[in-house]
């Protein structure tokens, strides 16, 4: 039994935290939101400097043999700081799609670009909805993608398209000047979403895909675990913010954290967070060894972390009282990010159903 991160991984965590606390304080997420930026270029390139975007890449593509567990550590620390960077689109989605569906030569064409700091994304509905797909004519993409995470900044994308024979097909596309991009207004403007229109955008089919649906299913599970770690980090830091305030803020002659009304609420947040942490670690294990339990572990991590972050973010506002409802306080940054992450990859209700289907197989 060894259900913990290694000492080396904890060292990586310490380094990341030091970097992110300094370079990606919550004011950085706020700056991206206020200025309508797609992401924080400084934080993204800083993480690149720490070789974060080579994690899980094969050595031929710039990787260093470090993998899934390290990426979970990165996700948690980024989540803790609400880091406004395209980690999910690039590393949890596009890279994973290429790892699962591209042959060696094709990986060698695309993945080193991620190691060099380029941003990538995935254009495919992951919430089970039927979206009209762009059309792939064998050489280029045509049509629209209405909701693309980091679509404004992405250099290339893995796209689920209708192939020349009308069947769904995964392609990788160069997001060059042929793509018209429109930034979308969202509930969390510290992260960028865009609508894309492809007009003869150069693309090639992924060359090692057996079945696009199966690949997307595995992809969804992998991404869910990594996103769950971001949610866990966010939940933990929202709790720390609430507890810090409850220790300082006085009412009726004493710190509000001494009242059971607040104390028990924060203990409830802690309880959800630690249960979520247990499920996230289970997901990390399943991800790291491609376990048969991957789908079950992903759903468990996803639901537990979604609930934990949602609750921590909402009760952090509540703990702060009226101050928590102001623009100046950072509470709303958590509240926004929690909801944004809760619906990426589909809502908890869809994940609940995925979980129970896995249970029925046991």
């Amino acid at each position: 039994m060894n259900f913990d991160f290694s000492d080396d991984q904890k060292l990586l965590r310490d380094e990341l935290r030091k970097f992110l606390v300094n370079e990606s304080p919550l004011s950085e997420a706020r700056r991206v939101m206020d200025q309508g930026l797609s992401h924080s270029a400084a934080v993204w390139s800083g993480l690149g400097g720490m070789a974060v975007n080579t994690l899980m890449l094969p050595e031929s593509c710039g990787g260093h043999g470090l993998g899934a567990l390290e990426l979970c550590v990165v996700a948690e620390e980024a989540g803790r700081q609400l880091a406004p960077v395209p980690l999910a689109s690039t590393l949890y989605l596009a890279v994973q799609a290429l790892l699962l569906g591209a042959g060696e030569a094709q990986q060698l064409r695309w993945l080193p670009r991620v190691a060099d700091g380029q941003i990538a994304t995935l254009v495919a509905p992951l919430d089970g909805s039927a979206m009209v797909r762009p059309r792939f004519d064998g050489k280029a993409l045509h049509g629209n993608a209405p909701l693309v995470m980091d679509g404004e900044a992405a250099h290339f994308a893995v796209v689920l398209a209708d192939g020349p024979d009308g069947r769904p097909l995964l392609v990788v596309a160069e997001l060059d000047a042929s793509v018209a991009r429109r930034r979308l207004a969202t509930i969390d403007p510290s992260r960028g979403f865009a609508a894309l229109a492809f007009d003869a955008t150069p693309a090639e089919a992924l060359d090692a895909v057996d079945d696009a649906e199966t690949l997307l299913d595995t992809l969804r599970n992998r991404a869910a675990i990594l996103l769950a770690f971001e949610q866990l980090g966010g939940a933990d830091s929202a709790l720390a913010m609430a507890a810090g305030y409850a220790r300082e803020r006085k009412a009726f002659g004493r710190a509000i954290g001494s009242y059971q009304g607040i104390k028990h609420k924060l203990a409830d947040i802690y309880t959800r967070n630690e249960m979520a942490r247990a499920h996230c670690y289970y997901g990390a294990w399943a991800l790291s060894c491609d376990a048969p339990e991957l789908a079950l572990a992903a759903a468990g991590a996803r639901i537990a972390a979604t609930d934990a972050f949602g609750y921590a973010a909402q009760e952090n506002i509540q703990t702060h009282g009226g101050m928590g409802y102001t623009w100046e306080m950072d509470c709303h940054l958590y509240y926004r990010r929690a909801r944004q992450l809760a619906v990426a990859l589909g809502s908890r209700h869809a994940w609940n159903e995925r979980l129970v289907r896995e249970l029925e197989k046991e």
Partner: protein
Amino acid sequence: MDFKDSPDEAAFRAECRAWLEANATRKTRPDQVYGRGLNAEQLMAASREWQGRKAAAGYGAITWPAAFGGRGGTPMQEVIYREEEGQFEVPPNAFAVSLGMVIPSLFVHASDEVRARYVGPALHGTELWCQLLSEPGAGSDLGMVRTRAERCTDGRDGWILNGQKVWTTYAQFAQFGMVLARTDPNVPKFDGLTSFFIDMQAAGVEVRPIRQASGEAEFNEVFFNEVFVPDTQRVGAVGAGWKVTVTALMNERLSIGGVMPPGLWKTAAGMMREASLNGASALADGRMRERLADLYLNAHGLWLLQARGLTALGKGREPGPELSIAKIVGARTLQDFGYLAIDLQGERGVLAAEEQGEAWRLVEQLWFGAAGMRIAGGTDEIVKNSVGERVLGLPPEPRTDKGVAFSQLGS
């Protein structure tokens, strides 16, 4: 990360399994409960006999040091044994308090003579110990103990005990009991306490079983009326009773696991499959599917929490504070399960195991047991206070009893 047994662990598991196969009957279904038709005395006799066989084979106290007759094993080995034992039909364990809490505090605080006399018979199940802590006026606020121990004035070297304890598990079966008593009312409440052990058959000790809300009688009231306790039965220094008690409670904190019956969510899924709702199987209903997911998330999450704790122990570290929430989540999960199981039966949910059959016994026990589990060993509310203060660093509520002599405290 992995959940695999190490080669040593796998060997130990195989050893346990072989011994259990030779000494007990394997369960045919996970929700099977031992002891159909046995009364409390018969169950206790069976539990003693089983403990004796375990002790003789080296499984009686796996984590105790070898010097005290234990195996000197790891907490992981303890869990492996329990996992394996859980698959067999064996008597309920009546020794959790005796061997998990009371006797380990003797290791630390008692004399060599006391340990030489008492540890062995306790380990082999011939002598059962109980822990006499809570009182009618001292529950969550255990420091308010009023039971008095006063020095003999008639020349005997000992103490005279007067007072009342309550909620004492298995006092009606125990040979000995560890008592927390007040020896000095003129100092603050935690400073004036001393621990003793008593012979439960001594003159002046009276045990009255409490009929629980469930109708069973697992707990007792214990009355002390001028009970003579020799000074050789004092454990720890005079005034050090709180320290001795905390040692025992710490042992309780580390005795993790074993709370959740294995396969609980599978049992629930089976019940949903069989029950009907809106003309279809209840398992087809979205609300039921959410309940099933919740049950899995809590039950499996607790198993994972324990896995984290064991990993820490295996590396020679203290388990993290997250284990403190296990009791809250566990008790609530079992209570939810009990409600769900009864609801799924519709009108038949009113029927007890005598009518529904033995498989229902587990549901009944968990449904009622969970209500007690939310109180025993620190109520949910006390645990939340402790999480808030010790883990999150929140200030305590203002206390009016701090630094005040016990005798000056209003009741």
